[in-house]
């Protein structure tokens, strides 16, 4: 121990420094999640900062709150490398509640958007508009696996859904298909 005192000292100091940084970051995340800094947090700013030269796509997003309120976010320009999760964070200014499943799944499950959170049998589902078929398709994959291409139209719908029932269509009366061809 005596001969390796410096080695142990470095190990202990580095560990304490890492632990302090991690606890600080955890406190920051908890504060953001509790809504104190939501929307204006540095994390959200980082996520929603412009693409700084990266290739971009233009997409449209609809959010149907299930109570008759439908809001469109039209012609949103975002980096082509983003997925539907990052897009959702962007259009809602990070007012999104999620459950995160770490590696290897590495997926976010959206439980709340703009203050409307899942409750009882009500939850959020995401749809893609199939331009060739002029119909909406309920996404069979998680939001992180939906990649953006130019002209994409996505819809978040709040309503009843279960393994037995497909959630309601984004716009009542519009055609739906199982998948885009």
């Amino acid at each position, binding site marked *: 121990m005596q*001969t390796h005192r410096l080695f142990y000292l470095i190990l202990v100091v580095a560990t304490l420094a890492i632990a302090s940084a991690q606890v600080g970051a955890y406190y920051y995340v908890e504060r953001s999640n509790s809504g104190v800094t939501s929307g204006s947090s540095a*994390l959200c700013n980082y996520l929603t900062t412009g693409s*700084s030269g990266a290739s971009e796509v233009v997409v449209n997003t609809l959010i149907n709150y299930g109570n008759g309120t439908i809001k469109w976010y039209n012609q949103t320009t975002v980096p082509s490398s983003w997925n539907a999760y990052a897009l959702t964070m962007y259009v809602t200014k990070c007012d999104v509640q999620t459950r995160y499943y770490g*590696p290897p799944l590495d997926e976010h499950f959206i439980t709340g958007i703009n203050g409307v959170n899942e409750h009882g049998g009500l939850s959020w589902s995401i749809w893609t508009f199939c331009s060739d078929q002029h119909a909406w398709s309920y996404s069979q994959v998680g939001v992180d696996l939906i990649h953006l291409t130019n002209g994409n139209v996505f819809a978040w719908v709040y309503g009843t859904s279960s393994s037995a029932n497909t959630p309601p269509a984004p716009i009542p009366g519009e055609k739906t298909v199982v998948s885009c061809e």
Partner: protein
Amino acid sequence: MKVALIAVFTALSLGTNYAMIDIPNVKLMDALVFIAAFLFGLQVGLGSAVSTWAIYGFLNPYGQADLTTFFFVTLGECLYAVCGGLLSRASAARDIINEGLRYRRVSLLFGLVGFQATFAYDLLTNFGTWLFRTSSLYQAFIIGMITGVPFAILHEASNLVFFATVVPLAIAASKRLGLAVAETRT
């Protein structure tokens, strides 16, 4: 011989991973990869890390890892092997093993090294998670570090315990059985 050792450590890692599947980010795999490299050399450690993730990444009840995630978790797992391999050559580790295992000292050493290796793993994999979702490497690093911190804390705390308890016991047992190889001998 090395292939057999890799197979044994891979089987141990997979068995414990699947047994602990309901406890996210708490796994014995990291400690096992470290032990493999510490006792039997870097090649065995690296082989165990890669082969474990090659199976666990694709045959997982939570779903299959995409290639980016697979690349980063495998690379991150190799950090434990590198740590084990390097520490086995360090005089600090050799001395405490050859002088007779003093449990408190060994636990302190392996616990702290395990904690720091886990921090490096979390930093790398959280960065990889956000690499293609953000518009710069800096953003990926910062967002990954902040958003991944609840999982990182759990991972680091559990590995601190595992490295401070399981690793010294495994090394003590292997020393008694005469299994430790050249790197740990002077």
